[in-house]
């Protein structure tokens, strides 16, 4: 039995249930780094290359936090999850592709890294191959791995079903882990509907976005994100833009935005973006142009290293005021 360390950021927010179930089923213990803190950010800023975006720096901090607590760091090389886009070449952002290499170079005293390559372009069965490869590294036989893989798929399915019901990923994770009950979720008392689009690790990490979702809840706004939409709905949106983007998470954010801006009961759209994100320079402009066409209020919230919430708060308050006035005069 080994301790497998998983950083609580980046792909964690969408795919953790699968990998946790997989490793647990194989008899290992999964250790997750704690929620992002100032100390994690500081460590990340210290270790990561200077021109990386904040999420990548934070990832470094999370990995460092697992040193001494885990025998392995699970940092898969996420290449792609599907054949998608105009040339079928959609990938994750380049920094995801180089993630295992980056942490190896940047962080001292790192435990061995499990850097299984995940490239599902040829087909879904590639995931089982990746699992076999991962199982191999830990000395497991094919049969064992297959059983763990099946169990992991079932758990991930339960998680995805929660998302389909409108439960946001960070809450669905709490439910899967037994920290929260589904029936305890707050579903009443909202008088605005706001779609928040952007990358999971920016939207669901309250440290990075200085408590944006909580702030919206306080303002009585119910939050929807692209992650509660089915792939079918998301992919349908592709036809509304001349060309899809190259990056997986970017396409999800754009498609989600495109869907929500056509919904009458959605009052406005917020795009949360990490300062200096390359793909987002396109995502943000695209969403802005499309929102204008649909006459849907649009706000960009740009986050970086600042810990002060004043800037975000002022913008959110003003945005919510604006939506309420619009509603009242409609």
């Amino acid at each position, binding site marked *: 039995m080994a301790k497998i360390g998983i950083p609580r950021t980046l792909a964690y927010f969408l795919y953790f249930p699968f990998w946790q179930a997989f490793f647990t089923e194989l008899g290992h213990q999964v250790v997750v780094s704690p929620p992002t803190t100032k100390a994690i950010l500081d460590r990340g800023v210290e270790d990561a290359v200077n021109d990386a975006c904040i999420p990548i720096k934070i990832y470094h901090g999370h990995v460092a936090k697992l040193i001494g607590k885990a025998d392995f760091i699970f940092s898969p090389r996420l290449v792609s999850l599907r054949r998608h886009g105009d040339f079928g070449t959609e990938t994750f952002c380049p920094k995801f592709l180089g993630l295992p290499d980056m942490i190896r170079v940047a962080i001292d005293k790192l435990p061995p890294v499990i850097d299984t390559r995940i490239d599902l372009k040829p087909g879904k069965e590639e995931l089982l191959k990746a699992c076999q490869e991962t199982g191999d590294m830990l000395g497991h036989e094919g049969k064992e791995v297959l059983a763990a893989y099946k169990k992991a798929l079932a758990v991930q399915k339960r998680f995805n079903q929660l998302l389909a019901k409108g439960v946001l990923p960070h809450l669905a994770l709490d439910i899967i882990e037994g920290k929260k009950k589904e029936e305890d979720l707050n579903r009443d008392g909202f008088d605005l509907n706001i779609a928040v689009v952007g990358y999971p690790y920016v939207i669901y990490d309250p*440290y990075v976005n200085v408590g944006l979702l909580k702030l919206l809840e306080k303002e009585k706004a119910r939050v929807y994100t692209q992650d509660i939409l089915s792939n079918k709905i998301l992919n349908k949106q592709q036809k509304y833009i001349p060309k899809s983007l190259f990056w997986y998470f970017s396409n999800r954010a754009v498609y989600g935005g495109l869907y929500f801006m056509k919904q009458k009961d959605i009052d406005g759209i917020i795009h949360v973006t990490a300062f200096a994100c390359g793909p987002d320079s396109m995502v943000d402009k695209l969403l802005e142009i499309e929102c204008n066409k649909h006459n849907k209020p649009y706000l960009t919230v740009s986050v970086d290293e600042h810990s002060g919430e004043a800037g975000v708060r002022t913008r959110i308050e003003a945005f919510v005021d604006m939506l309420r006035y619009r509603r009242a005069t409609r």
Partner: protein
Amino acid sequence: MIGYLGVDVGSVSTNVVIIDEKGEVIASRYLRTNGKPIETVQKGLYSVGEEVGDKVQIAGVGTTGSARYLVSMIVGADIVKNEITAHAVAASNVVKGVQTIIEIGGQDSKIIILRNGVVTDFAMNTVCAAGTGSFLDQQANRLCIPIEEFGDYALKAKNPVRIAGRCAVFAESDMIHKQQLGYNIEDIIAGLCEALVRNYMNNVGKGKEILPPVVFQGGVAANKGLVAAFNKYLGLEVIVPKEHGVMGAIGAALLAREATKKTGQTNFKGFNIKDISFKTDSFECNGCSNACEVVQFYENDELIARWGDRCGKWEMSTR
């Protein structure tokens, strides 16, 4: 006579106004915050209080600006509003049918788009404060020209030179370079004004449909050079309200009028808060590795509020 008080505490200036029931300004103060919001508000309040004396009875108080929550506790505010809403309310009140508001303050610049009296879109500068009041202050200082005369210099220019306006550091080195080449100071200052407008339009105003009437407000609107540069760029006459420097405070007062109409009572603590001692201290929470700096706020040695923690552990149920 009944009046409403509005307080706007921003990074550079603290503004206090009293309006009557019709929304006309009875008294106003424009003070430098100098990093001491509490003292400045106490001073400003005392001073307008002396001016209006017993003639005005305050029926509602509103606060806005980046220190709006702190100040709301000092004055006993009935409503706390963000700057964008406050500025929009004030401009709508002064210029009927306003469709675009350009607001440039000490460290913020914003654009607010209204249609049929409702805010439909807005934008604020993101991370960089180039082109806001503090930068102009600095440049005026460097050129040894009082900031009040900055605009007059710009108006005297015959051929404004081109200055890089994207970044305050670039702008400064560009200006120095042009000075060394022998261009005259009027043309350089006018060039700077045009650069700031260009930068504002590219940054804050990008993609926005700017329709007249356009109101230009905030402390920087006092600069005639910038007004001229905006007129030239937009091809129309921007309107600078008489009270352009205190519009945020006017908006807060108007919002207070609206808020107290429903409740019929106010939390106002009176003008004479000069003798109340307000103080803050802070400590580093060691509950987790966030190490939040928690601020504690005291009124006459009684702890009445706390903020600065991310998890809500230290929050007090004052509001």
